[in-house]
């Protein structure tokens, strides 16, 4: 028999701190923690309106944050965690926004509700997840944007919370469990989710005793779930009359709420904010009418959009977090790493594009490591309407094709303008999957699908006046084409419209000059060997490749002064070296690639492997390079060329004075034969020794 005090849940909750609402914190830090706006944010994010408000009727009206969907909570959660959570949410997770509902009630409620929650299972099959790496998980967490919101929302005890494999499942589809969309779906891959889980939940403790389902207890829990008000937040099924407020100092807003009243652990400032907001609403809880701009700001506060985006001068990555916003293309600068400001977004985007973007789809900044997530249907349907209402200007200056249909843009004219003979847009921008010739800014073929034509035109006319256009040159300054010799002549609108038309049809058009005429850059030795210096995989950053007309190719590593690779067939493609700024490691084009590193070296007998000093090469009359390097006081000249049987012959000439014995050593890899045998000593005659090696494979 348990002693009495344990059977009743303590009235005073653990000191878990006040509920943590990012949008509220943002206002509080700006000095507005007690104001009506802060109170409205709390009314929504603490789901006060679940009991005290009505569901909004207009699609553009603000909705409050509903609780997680518990219909499959039994799959997801560990019994021990559910018990602890119900017994005092803030003690389990400081800053929890779910109120403590059971304070001062008999402990049986905890057990019955736990039974009920755990009974709610989907019956789906458990799929074993691939293991993840915590190190990679931390990297992902800090780069894709998780940390932008979770800077203040500490993530602890997730291993204790989620059943085995369920954290991964949650991360893959967070909107299933949390339909309110405050936690976006960042479209993590299964592998990424596994890495994240390995870092977020390194320990998965087993429950001390197995959970035994108890149907009677679960049924009692089901009844309590409805009667205590859990369902109001978690299911929002029942249309119910709002509970009016009677006393701004009592109820949930009392400093010490009575038993049976939800305990949020509100700070004094939060209570003041709520009182201010409620007083403004009046006892009928009539929602204040908000202008579109204010409604957008409210939404951005509630979803913490400001963690990444600016609008109307507020928000954006904080100085502490800014270094974590990175790009794979660093010299795009901040435009490549920071999510764009949302000023004017309602005028910029076509509504369908905006809806897709809010679902985290159709992004074009693929070099930006932070991701735009899917914030759920609710936001994707409401925010575009609000943005359009706030940002659209009327009347727009009409597009040229509307004014004079004969002047509508022409595909072929746009092609010329976009290409290298025109304004060379492709010098910086990708185009329909073609890499750009330069910095790799976003794909232009996506622009007409996303952007409103009027915005696109005005942006191109004066890019610097838009926050995302600061690195974009003005090709039509003050409405005048920089190059009136291009199609469209002196008519900027006409040139721009041609660009729009061409980009719209880019998928079915000829690539522009500069992409279309990009020849194959394969190097084909014809009558003489080709020497080509670049980065080569398996050789390194000091590679000097030699391609022979006979169809055998070699590569020398000038860093360590040794032969590194040989292969047969095609030589190399110079395209990466010649055209890409990020010089990739080139790959031999041919086949039969072998490593030459251990296929023969000269050493001083009895001494450790020497450091060879690269001195350069000379081209002999037949075009074959002879490499020169130093071994102590000796100079080695090294000529390697194909044999008639598609092997290699190497002539080594050693000159200089030495009293030591110089030995040829070789440990060729499997499948490679070298002659002479390892251990052959060189014989010097007049300060010169020569040795010929045959390599076949």
């Amino acid at each position, binding site marked *: 028999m348990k002693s009495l005090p344990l059977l009743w849940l303590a009235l005073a909750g653990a000191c878990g701190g006040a509920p943590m609402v990012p949008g509220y914190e943002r206002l509080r830090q700006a000095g507005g923690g007690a104001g009506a706006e802060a109170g409205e944010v709390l009314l929504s994010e603490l789901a006060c309106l679940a009991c005290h408000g009505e569901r909004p009727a207009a699609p553009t009206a603000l909705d409050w944050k509903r609780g997680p969907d518990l219909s499959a909570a039994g799959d997801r959660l560990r019994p021990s965690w559910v018990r602890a959570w119900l017994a005092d949410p803030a003690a389990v997770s400081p800053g929890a926004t779910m109120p403590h509902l059971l304070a001062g009630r008999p402990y049986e409620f905890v057990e019955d509700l736990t039974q009920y929650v755990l009974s709610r299972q989907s019956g789906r099959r458990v799929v074993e997840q691939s293991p993840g790496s915590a190190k990679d998980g931390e990297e992902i967490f800090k780069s894709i944007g998780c940390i932008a919101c979770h800077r203040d929302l500490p993530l602890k005890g997730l291993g204790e919370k989620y059943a085995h494999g369920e954290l991964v499942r949650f991360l893959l589809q967070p909107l299933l469990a949390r339909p309110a969309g405050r936690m976006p779906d960042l479209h993590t891959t299964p592998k990424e989710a596994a890495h994240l889980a390995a870092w977020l939940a390194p320990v998965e403790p087993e429950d001390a005793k197995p959970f035994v389902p108890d149907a009677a207890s679960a049924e009692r829990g089901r009844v309590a779930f409805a009667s205590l008000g859990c369902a109001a937040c978690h299911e929002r099924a029942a249309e119910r009359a709002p509970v009016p407020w009677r006393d701004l100092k009592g109820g949930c807003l009392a400093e010490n709420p009575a038993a049976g009243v939800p305990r949020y652990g509100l700070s004094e400032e939060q209570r003041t904010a709520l009182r201010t907001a409620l007083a403004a609403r009046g006892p009928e809880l009539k929602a204040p009418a908000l202008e579109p701009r204010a409604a957008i700001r409210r939404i951005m506060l509630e979803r913490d959009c400001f963690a990444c985006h600016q609008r109307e001068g507020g928000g954006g990555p904080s*100085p502490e977090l*800014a*270094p974590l916003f990175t790009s*794979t*293309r*660093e*010299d795009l*600068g*901040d435009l490549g790493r920071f999510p764009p400001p949302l000023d004017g977004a309602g005028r910029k985007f076509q509504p369908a594009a905006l809806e897709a973007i809010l679902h985290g789809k159709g992004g074009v900044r693929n070099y930006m490591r932070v991701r735009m997530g899917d914030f759920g249907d609710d936001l994707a349907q409401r925010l575009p309407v609000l943005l359009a209402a706030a940002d659209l200007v009327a009347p727009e200056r009409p597009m040229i094709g509307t004014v004079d249909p004969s002047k509508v843009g022409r595909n072929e004219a746009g092609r010329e303008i976009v290409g*290298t*003979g025109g304004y*060379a847009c492709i*010098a*910086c921008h990708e185009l329909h999957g073609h890499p750009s*010739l*330069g*910095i790799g800014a976003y794909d232009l073929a996506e622009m007409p699908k996303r952007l409103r034509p009027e915005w696109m035109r005005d942006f191109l006319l*004066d890019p*610097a*006046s838009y926050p995302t256009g600061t690195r974009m*040159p*003005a*090709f039509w*300054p*003050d*409405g*005048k084409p*920089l*190059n009136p010799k291009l199609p469209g002549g002196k008519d900027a609108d006409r040139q721009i419209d041609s660009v729009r038309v061409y980009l719209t049809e880019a998928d079915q058009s000829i690539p522009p000059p*500069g992409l279309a005429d990009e020849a194959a850059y394969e190097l084909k030795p014809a009558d003489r060997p*080709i*020497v*080509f*210096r*670049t*980065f080569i995989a398996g050789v*390194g*950053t*000091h590679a*000097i490749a030699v391609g022979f007309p006979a169809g055998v190719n070699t590569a020398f590593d*000038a*860093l360590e002064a040794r032969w590194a690779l040989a292969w047969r067939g095609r030589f190399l493609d*110079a395209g990466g*070296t*010649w*055209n890409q*700024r*990020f*010089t990739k*490691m080139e790959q031999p084009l041919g086949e039969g690639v072998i490593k030459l590193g251990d296929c023969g070296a000269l050493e001083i007998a009895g001494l450790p492997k020497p450091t060879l000093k*690269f*001195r*350069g*090469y*000379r*081209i*002999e009359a037949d075009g074959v*390079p002879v490499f020169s390097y130093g071994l102590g006081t000796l100079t080695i000249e090294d000529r390697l060329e194909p044999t008639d049987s598609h092997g290699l012959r190497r002539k080594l000439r050693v000159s200089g004075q030495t009293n030591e014995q110089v030995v040829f050593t070789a440990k060729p890899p499997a499948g490679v034969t070298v002659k002479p045998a390892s251990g052959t000593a060189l014989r010097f005659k007049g300060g010169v020794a020569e040795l010929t090696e045959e390599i076949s494979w």
Partner: protein
Amino acid sequence: MVTMFEWTSAPVFGRGGAASTRCVEAALCEPRRTGAASLFLDSGPLKTLKKLEAAPVRLGSQRAASTHSYDGALALLITLLICLSASLSRADQPTDPYRIISLDYPPDVTLEASGLARLPGGKLAVAIRRGEVWVAENPYAPEGKGVRWKRFASGLHEPLGLAFHDGALYTTQRSEVTRLRDTNGDGTADEYTCAAKGWGVSGAYHEYAYGPKFDSAGNMWVTLNCTMGDSFVPQKDWRGFSLRITPDGAWKPVSGGMRSPSGIGINAAGDVFYSEQQGNWNCGGGVHHIRQGAFHGHQASFASAGLPGAPFAKPAKPVERVPIPEAERLMPIYKPPAVWLPYRKVGMSATDLVLDNTGGKFGPFDGQFFVGEFTMSAINRVFLEKVDGEYQGACFNFMDGFQCGVLRMEFGDDGSLFVGETNRGWNSFGTRSYGLQRVLWNGKPPFDMQKMEALPHGFRCTFTKPITRAAAAAAQWQMRSYTYEYHAEYGGPDIDVQTPGVRLVNLSADGLAAELAVDGLRAGYIHELDITGLAAADGDPLAHPAAHYTLNKIPAP
């Protein structure tokens, strides 16, 4: 004796003083450049034009108060307007003292000129980014037509410099300095000797190596771009450092903290400089003095500061997010540029530094540096002086309208300037993606500010042609001082802006040197002087109305 005369910096022309002041302020914030380059600026030519259209009213109003001829002023303004609006390129104008011609080259050569070296016998060697060196036999061919070319070397890894020294060509590839020699006299290099190597090459993009430049002692100078982005191997030693390579091939790092040091120049005194580009840790471009132990600002270099032979140690507390003068004070190894090249106003991406050592064959700028400009396809100009033992000075626009981004420059035997161009990787103004051009001077001096020197209480501006007191009085002289924040982010705005008052206190008897008194010079700040409506005694309008002086130190009285 020179009569003293003065005016205030805020023009008061009749009524509407507030409006005209605002107009002037806006004008000051917006650089006025003629030609295509200005199209990159926040405000385009049309706006500039509008401002100038407003100017006759002011000049007209002033006529009553001065002896200046209204007709003369109007004519001047009309000239200015024509200059601004008639053409995209100054160089197209028949009256321009400088003119650009393009050199022919074989159609199958991708002449992305990345190194230029004058050779004996009136030849010119040109390195190209695709790893070859070509020799132009007759680069001075009239109008660039009929130039004969021969390939001298190939197989190099993106050479970004070329020098001729002691009978051989030297070039810097990604991973080494290479000496190229033709030992059998067939006109093609057959000896590729490693002259220096050993710096880190991780393969990350942007790891360019530039040079070499030879000093009078026969040392080679090489600069290494800092590493950006991911790399496949971690070796990044000495990225962002300058190296001095002695004739025996031994080298040591001299200074570090470089971002994109694509130009190296040595002045008449033998001091070595490099050009820097705007980006991380650099809110503007700059011309830096390379000297032992200098840290030029980009903190990626701290990765090598612990290596043996490092020219400086990583500070215990690296400084960030403070104004430049403050960063210099708090972190003594940090040496800001001798001359800032304000972003957009004086280029967006400085490249080569070439010393005008033509003895006047290229105009009145002997001893000054010309600075290449990639994005805006232009050339700017830098005047340097020593104050309190350190270099500082002013920069000016020089010319624009090149066909492509300017990467390399080399003076020819006749004092004309060869200009090597490429825009691969970034965009640039112009009509071509690469090429070789030549700038010719017609022997008539342009009307420019030849130099701007710091004085204890102001500046002395020396012009290339005399001005009259009346013309000086008719012009507006405006000053704006500001600095940048020292921070890791990519670029940044002017901060701490002031518009100190300027008074003309003296004009030399020959009419060439105007002495300005400035209220409140600030050490460590850029002082931008904008002169509107100044004409030389012969009627020529001032070709480039802005001068940007980096006042690292104020001279002692």
